[in-house]
Structure formats: structure tokens, C-alpha cells
């Protein structure tokens, strides 16, 4: 059984069709890329897969469960997590709290346990703390645990957001332009980080990225969309040589 099977997704906003008949399939363990010019509909695909939008048409089956129409927190609980194109951390909660809160689906206790401070509450809070600290340690973020994300440099904020996404224990991690706004040193760090996460956490990663160096050095397989439609798919080498892709990126007049 495939990890995720996306079948003929279409998303319409009023008269605008942002994505049409998009399909993909991952068996598990891949590092996939999704590229395309600005406004092509990439983020909209992620929004549908993460449950933020309900597709106008099409099916998403994740790990055997159809997810289209489920609330986002249910989808996340099933094992899909993501980062955002514009960082969306909780900027007035500490880095540690950001990581802790992302474990809500595995909290293991109810509001009554929180009021009554039951054994179940104490055990689970201790576990949440431990998991959060281990994750921060693994990503070399431990020394920032008490900082507010807003006070961190942009590159670190991106990293904290990835850490937060990992904290939900995903099987599939969606990265929406993780290299956007990073300087070249940070970009190199990011490439190493994604590669390391892919290997260390043994998860499937699906990323949107504009910077070709990132996509080309990380992704095994890339899909290209333009105006909401897939125009090409293949390995990085194939994509780089594909005239349709070059045309979509550079425009007709430059060929």
C-alpha cells in the first residue's frame, strides 16, 4: 500500500482553478520535489494535502485513510505535518513551548487531568517535555529553548519551524519553500539538515522549492506544475533538460 495516493485533485476558488487534476503517489521513504513558477498552485496542493482546504474534486488517501474533508488536526494526527511558506511560528511562546504544543495529538490526557493534575497528566507532561528536549537537542536548538522565536534570526526560525513540524511525529513532512529568504550559508545548512532528517527520522519528505540548487541536490523525483496543471515529471536531470519546463520558467519570448 502506498503511503500517500493523491488522485486528480482540483481546487477552484470561485472562477479561478488554482489546481487541476493533480495526481501523485509516494510509497514511503522518498524525497520528492514540487516546483513551478509563482502562482502555479504549489502551496494550494500542500493546503489540500494538509487538510487546510477541502479539494473541489479528487481523492487523497494517506496510509489507507481518505483524508479529503478531514479537519487539519486530524490529518496531522494521521501523520502529515508541514511548514509554511511564510513562517508561522507562535512568536510569543518560547521555542520549547512551540515544540511542546505540536504534540497535542499525542497528549494522552484530557482537560480534567490538567485541572486535577492526575498521575496520567504528570506522566504525559514529563514525556512531552522529554520528547521536546530530545528533538531540540537533535536539531542543535537546545540552547534556544527559552527564546521567543521572534527574537531569533530568520534561518533559525525556519529550523525551529521544521523542528515543530517534526514534533508531531509525521510520516510525511511537507516543506513549503524552506530555503526562501535564507542566505547562501544557511541554504547549505538547510540542504544538509533536510538530508539528515530524511535519513535519521526515516520519513518521507515532499518539498516545494524555488532554488534549483536545493531541489536538484535533494530530490529524487520532481513534479513541475504550471497554471495548476502538471507539465512535467522526472529525475532532476530530466527536469533540467526538459524544454517544457524551461519554457514555463523563462516564458515564451526568451526561447
Amino acid at each position, binding site marked *: 500500500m502506498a503511503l500517500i495516493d493523491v488522485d486528480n485533485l482540483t481546487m477552484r476558488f470561485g472562477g479561478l482553478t488554482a489546481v487541476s487534476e493533480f495526481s501523485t503517489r509516494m510509497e514511503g521513504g522518498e524525497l520528492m520535489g514540487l516546483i513551478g513558477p509563482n502562482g502555479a498552485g504549489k502551496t494550494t496542493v500542500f493546503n489540500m494535502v*494538509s*487538510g*487546510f482546504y477541502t479539494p473541489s474534486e479528487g481523492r487523497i488517501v494517506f496510509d489507507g485513510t481518505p483524508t479529503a474533508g478531514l*479537519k*487539519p*488536526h486530524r490529518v*496531522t*494526527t494521521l501523520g502529515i*505535518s*508541514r511548514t*509554511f511558506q511564510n513562517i*508561522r*511560528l*507562535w*512568536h*510569543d*511562546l518560547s521555542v520549547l*513551548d512551540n515544540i*511542546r*504544543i*505540536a*504534540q*497535542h*495529538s499525542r*497528549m494522552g*490526557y*484530557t*482537560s480534567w487531568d*490538567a*485541572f486535577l*493534575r492526575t498521575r496520567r*497528566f*504528570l506522566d504525559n*507532561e514529563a514525556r*512531552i517535555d522529554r520528547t521536546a528536549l530530545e528533538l531540540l537537542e537533535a536539531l542543535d536548538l537546545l540552547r534556544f529553548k527559552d527564546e521567543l522565536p521572534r527574537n531569533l534570526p530568520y534561518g533559525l526560525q525556519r529550523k525551529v519551524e521544521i523542528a*515543530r*513540524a517534526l*514534533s*508531531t511525529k509525521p510520516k510525511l513532512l511537507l516543506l513549503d519553500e524552506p530555503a526562501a529568504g535564507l542566505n547562501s550559508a544557511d541554504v547549505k545548512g538547510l540542504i544538509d539538515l533536510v538530508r539528515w532528517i530524511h535519513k535519521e527520522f526515516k520519513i518521507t519528505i515532499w518539498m516545494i522549492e524555488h532554488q534549483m540548487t536545493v531541489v536538484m541536490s535533494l530530490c529524487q523525483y520532481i513534479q513541475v506544475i504550471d497554471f495548476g496543471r502538471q507539465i512535467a515529471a522526472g529525475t532532476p536531470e530530466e527536469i533540467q533538460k526538459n524544454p517544457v519546463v524551461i519554457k514555463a520558467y523563462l516564458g515564451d519570448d526568451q526561447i
Partner: protein
Amino acid sequence: MLQRLSVPLVLLASLAVCVGLSMGGVLDGYMQTVLMFVGINVILATSLNLINGNMGEFACGHAGFMAVGAYVSSLLTVLFLTDSKFGPALLPSGAALWFFPLSLVVGGAAAAVTGLLVALPSFRTRGDYLAIITIAASYIIKSSIENIDTIGGARGFMGMSRVVAAMNSTIDLPWMIIWTFAGAVFCVWIIQRYVSSTYGKGVMAICQDEVAAEIMSVNTNRIKLVTFMLSSGLAGLAGGLMAHVLGYVNPGNFTILKSTEIMVMVYMGGMGSISGAVMAAFLITFLMEGLRFIIPMLDTLLHAVWLLPDGYELTQVWKWVIIPLLLIMLMMFRPEGIMGARELADLFPRLRQYYKFK
């Protein structure tokens, strides 16, 4: 160990002082009432702060939930403990001691259920729209009460002073002081437990970025439900206490003006700060009462220095000029309120050793 016990000890000691001073006659009836209102306002301010401060919603119908708590608990105590138009007392008057707190809990629970009126719409909307819904909800509650004649309708409902008298005659203690004190402490305690848990931190996550919260696995609807119910339940508790402190309630006690007064406390204290809300509750209560004396004094003073014409008297109406003016100044010079989002322990880290939340 002793350090951990210090907060309960300090609280017990201050309760003992209040009780002692009341029984010794140092605090007269008026001053006791002021103290009890401090307690009630602490509950109101901290519970509304959970919604308006921590969750970042703009709820302005807190008085409605107070009304539910006030009427439900009053009905219960009057029905069960006194000879009323509903019939003779169903319980001996000695039962007041345990039945009264029970009625407060039931009143709070009823208010919590009424909180659904606001919690359910909050799933789909926020901001201005939710603000309007909260006002509408409080009006629904108020006019429902006005139209139920068995509970007095617009005339109000009374008989609660006999319940208080029944408690006092069973064991001679200033029971209402004890219960308002206990209510305030319980309220701060339970809210503190809530917001310091990973569960309750979901509330702050919703405030700061609701979309990110939902996508990062926070069940935002569930959290909103629990938070609105907790907040309105506590408001109901405050309502029950108020009804028994006053001995008489009518729908006019629970207008939008009352909700506004509670909101003023929250904004004065600082959004999301429990200690700020507590301080503001003290400050506003004392200020409101203090002005009763300060205004006549100011009147005499201004006449003495010829600043006011003889025919004009500075009346209590000026209270509603002075307090809003103070609020405007606060918003201009310290818009984040007394405490901002901080707690006392953030300002004085040494305090931390005296209590433990986890």
C-alpha cells in the same frame, strides 16, 4: 517543603485576618462588602482574561454568564433552604453550610453549559463577529430572565439573605467572606493549572496563529469549547457569590455595563496576565468605592479654594468621568496594561521558589 507551603499559608493567614477583623467588628458591614466584591471581581477579571487575554478573542458578554450562575444558585438555595413562594424549606437550615457551596457549583455548571452559546459560534468566526455574538448571547440571557415571571422577571429575585442568615446562625462565622475568598483562590488556581499545561497552552497558540495551531495538531474547536466553558462557568460562580452577598438580584445587575466593567479590569491588568487581572480587580474595586469618599472631599476642597461656583456640587456622577479618564490615560501611556502579558514571577523571579505549578 516550607517554601512550597508558603502560598497556602499566606492565603490562610489573610483569610484568618479578614474573618477575625470582621468578627471583631473592626471591619463594618460596608467594608466587608467591599472586600467580598474584590473577591468576586478577581474571579470575573481572571476568567474573562482567559478569553480576551490568553485566547485573544473579544468577548463582551461576561455578565450574561454571571446572571445564569446567580439565578440558578439563588433559586436552589431559596427553594431548598427557605420558606418561599415555592413552598416550605426542603432542608433544615443547618444544611445551608454544605448546600450553599453545592448550589454555587451547580450555578457555575449551568453557566458553563450556557457558555456553549458563545463557544459553538466561535468555531466558525472570530473578531468583531464573535464580539457581537457574545453581546447578543448576554442579551438573550437577560431578556429570558426578564420574561420568566416565576423568578421575578424584571423585578428581580430575593430571599438569599435568609440563606446567608441560616449559615451564620448555624455556625457564627462571616461565611460570605470565606466563600468569596475561597472562590477567588479556586478560580486563580484552576486557571493557572489550565494555562500552564500543554493542553492549555493550545489557547495561546490559537491566539497567536489559529491556522498554525490547527495544522500543528491542536484540536482548536475542543480547546475553544473547554476554554469558553471554563470561563463562563467561573463567571457563573462569581454570579452566585454576588447574588448571595447582595441578597437580591435583578436582570439590571447583568447589563452590558457590567460586562464592560469586567473588560476594563482585564485591559487594565494586562492581556493574558493572571496577576495583572487580580491586581486590576483590587484596584478598580477600591477605586470605585474610594471615589465615593474622594468626590465629596474634592467638592469641599474645590469650593474652599474658590475653584467651583457656590451653586454647583461635584456629585457621584463624576465617578463615570474620572474612571474612563483614567482608562484613557492608561491606554495612552501604558497600553499594555499594568502587567502586559507578564506575571509577577516574571518580574520577581525569586517568587518562583515559593510555588510550583507542574
